């Protein structure tokens, strides 16, 4: 295989594996804030037990997220050195800001979240949990700034520097709030909240099925299903806004998502099907006029097709189409699952419906798959560009790196990541089987002090 293919496979594989974890850190972060907040508010010890249990799961996902995340920062330089020279002025700033504003916050307060239970007061601990959650969100902010700039570059100019062209910042806030940033950020965050919430739902449903830790499971389900349903519903809105943004900013990508070859008004929305690339048409179930309606709130809106772009400027159609439709399909399925779970939970009959509990157990896979497919769609749909309209992917490669070197490191990372994944699943399963600690129902250390006492210490 050539250097380009290997470098792309390596980056895709390492970033896909990495992205199993940050959404869990963000989503579980929100769950932890909810649980600990509820504990402070209600003083119900089961919320304390929940916060303790899910903190341990959080620690596990966080460690692998950190370990695999640093690989990404290095790979821009190792595999995509020419790209790095071209965008360093712009893209590097976002990465550095991520380090200063997000990672320090997250990892610093993580110490208190994990190890500070007996060392600080309830309020300080809750504050730390909020800071970890905030840090995880900031990290999403800056990485989406960087990636959105690659999708919809703004706030830059192209300048000759030492005989090569590169992008330089002209307006920092235009760079940050580039045209696709806000909608993509909200879409990414909703996906992350779903990932965290459905993990909580899945484990709790498992306990209900096995009739173990039932108070714990019910309380976890209450929080989990609420966040899961809310995030799944909001996700439709953010997804819709994002897709409208794609139609406006990256029409070739939207055309590939929908397998639309000819520019047309009354463009159909493909509900299910596949693209026949040879005959340039889609086989499957279509909803006439719906794509035009979604893009412009009018079935007569013109949607640009792939034939308006030169063949070398089109993204891979089948892959974009499948990734995109896979994501959308799973997204809607998550709403149904969350809504059913939520309704029966409110009705008080969820524990009797074993079929639904089993679906909830497996629902944890949904957001993970949708997150992966969504990123694949976003990145494959940007092709053939590495920076949309400015630099083509092959142009971004490192000049001095040989194929066998990339292959060696690709094999090495693959083996290590399989090992890490196996160990992660093994330890996660172990934690779930072990379940919440009974002694966590009784807060210890400084946390055991009644909150009133900490305000008025006896002299």
């Amino acid at each position, binding site marked *: 295989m050539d250097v380009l293919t290997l470098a792309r496979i390596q980056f895709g594989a390492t970033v896909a594996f990495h992205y199993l974890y940050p959404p869990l850190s963000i989503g579980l972060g929100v769950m932890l804030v909810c649980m600990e907040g509820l504990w402070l508010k209600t003083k119900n010890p089961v919320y304390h037990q929940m916060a303790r249990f899910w903190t341990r799961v959080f620690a596990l996902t966080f460690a692998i997220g950190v370990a695999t995340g*640093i*690989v990404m920062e290095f790979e821009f*330089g190792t595999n995509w050195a020419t790209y790095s020279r071209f965008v360093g002025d712009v893209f590097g700033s976002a990465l550095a800001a*991520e380090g200063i504003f997000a990672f*320090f916050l997250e990892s610093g*307060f993580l110490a208190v979240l994990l190890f500070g239970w*007996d060392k600080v007061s309830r309020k300080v601990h809750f504050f730390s949990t909020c800071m970890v959650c905030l840090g995880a969100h900031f990290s999403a902010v800056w990485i989406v700034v960087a990636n959105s700039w690659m999708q919809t570059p703004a706030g830059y100019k192209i300048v000759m520097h030492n005989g090569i062209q590169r992008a330089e910042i002209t307006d920092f806030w235009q760079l940050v709030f580039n045209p696709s940033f806000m909608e993509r950020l909200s879409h990414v965050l909703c996906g992350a909240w779903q990932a965290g919430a459905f993990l909580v739902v899945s484990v709790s449903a498992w306990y209900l099925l096995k009739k173990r830790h039932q108070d714990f499971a019910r309380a976890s389900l209450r929080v989990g299903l609420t966040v899961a349903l809310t995030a799944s519903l909001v996700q439709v809105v953010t997804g819709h806004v994002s897709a409208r943004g794609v139609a406006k900013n990256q029409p070739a990508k939207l055309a590939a998502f929908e397998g639309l070859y000819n520019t047309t008004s009354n463009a159909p929305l493909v509900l299910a099907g596949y693209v026949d690339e040879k005959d340039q048409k889609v086989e499957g179930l279509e909803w006439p006029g719906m794509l035009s309606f979604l893009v412009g709130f009018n079935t007569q809106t013109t949607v640009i097709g792939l034939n308006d772009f030169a063949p070398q400027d089109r993204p891979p159609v089948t892959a974009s189409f499948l990734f995109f439709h896979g994501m959308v399909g799973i997204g809607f399925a998550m709403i149904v699952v969350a809504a059913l779970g939520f309704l029966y939970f409110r009705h008080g009959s969820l524990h009797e419906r074993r079929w639904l509990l089993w679906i909830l157990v497996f629902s944890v896979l949904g957001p993970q798959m949708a997150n992966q497919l969504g990123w694949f769609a976003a990145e494959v749909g940007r092709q053939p560009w590495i920076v949309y309209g400015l630099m083509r992917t092959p142009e971004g490669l*490192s000049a*001095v790196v040989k194929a066998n070197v990339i292959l060696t490191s690709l094999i090495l990372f693959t083996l290590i990541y399989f090992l890490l994944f196996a160990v992660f699943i093994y*330890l996660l399963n172990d934690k779930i089987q072990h379940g919440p600690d009974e002694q966590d129902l009784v807060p210890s250390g400084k946390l055991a002090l009644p909150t009133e006492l900490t305000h008025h210490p006896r002299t």
Partner: protein
Amino acid sequence: MNLDLNTVWFILVGVLFTGYAMLDGFDLGIGALHLFTKDDTERRTLINAIGPVWDGNEVWLVTGGGALFAAFPNVYATIFSGFYLAFVLLLVSLIFRAVAIEFRSKQPMHWWRQTWDIGFSAGSLVSGLLMGVALGNIAWGVPVGADGEFAGTFLGLLTPYPLLVGVTTVALFMMHGAIYGVMKTEGALHDKLRIWAMRCIIFFVICAVTLTMATLLYVPRMAARLHDHPWLFSIALANMLAIANIPREFHHRRDWLAFLSSCAAMATLMMLFGLNLYPNLIYSLPDPANSLTIYNASSSPKTLGIMLIIAGIGVPVVIAYTVCIYWIFRGKVKLDRMSY
């Protein structure tokens, strides 16, 4: 040397990497010493001595890398693509170091813990070594082509001088970690660490003296820089005094001051390194004309200015809560059910 934005960022990147060495240096040092004790409780105590902080310490490296990318993208691109295999090995080492801390105490089996202990220790040791080798190559000079790309090979990076810098870095981190361990432990492990720390100090001093001689003999431009700017001797002197102060404070059981002296030794070493390099970031051998400097490799002045504002807002906040967190976790390590 005038204090323009490029120079400020040269200093700031140096500060970030020095901060990384001072903080994660003791984590990697503890890791390198980890296998010297066979006792499970002692190994757990060592891991938990760094448990709450190693993760935040590693962020200094991530941010240093990000700052290098943003401020000097050409250096980032040349070095990272040029030192490809070395950096992949560094990543693998850092991955194993990180996950081993999280994984090792989660299962009681002896083979499980022994495996991750080896991962933790080897990961820490190799990380320190490779960072030193990278630094050593930059001190020695790196083959750069007229196109600004790396023109050497992986094996070409493993020459005696960079390897000596690598070993010295390991010795420095081990000494730093042992002193940190002495401060964080009590009882039998504390007494053991006290002996190890003394041995590490001796090991480091031997390395440091050898490295100084090697630098003066074999890196003539370093000696020439010292010859042209005699005031640099004051930093070299401060460095020697800091190193000499480590065993002195340690002998008097003022471990905290010994630790600070070790930090000062790192800071002065990095200053010497930086002042000898300036204004180059990558000194090119054999053709110095191809060197990457803080001017030809930098981002635009506007970006450097924006980044300076970001750093100005972010860094004081980071330092403030980092100090708070170290304060919360002050004192000797006690194992409890939250511990690794």
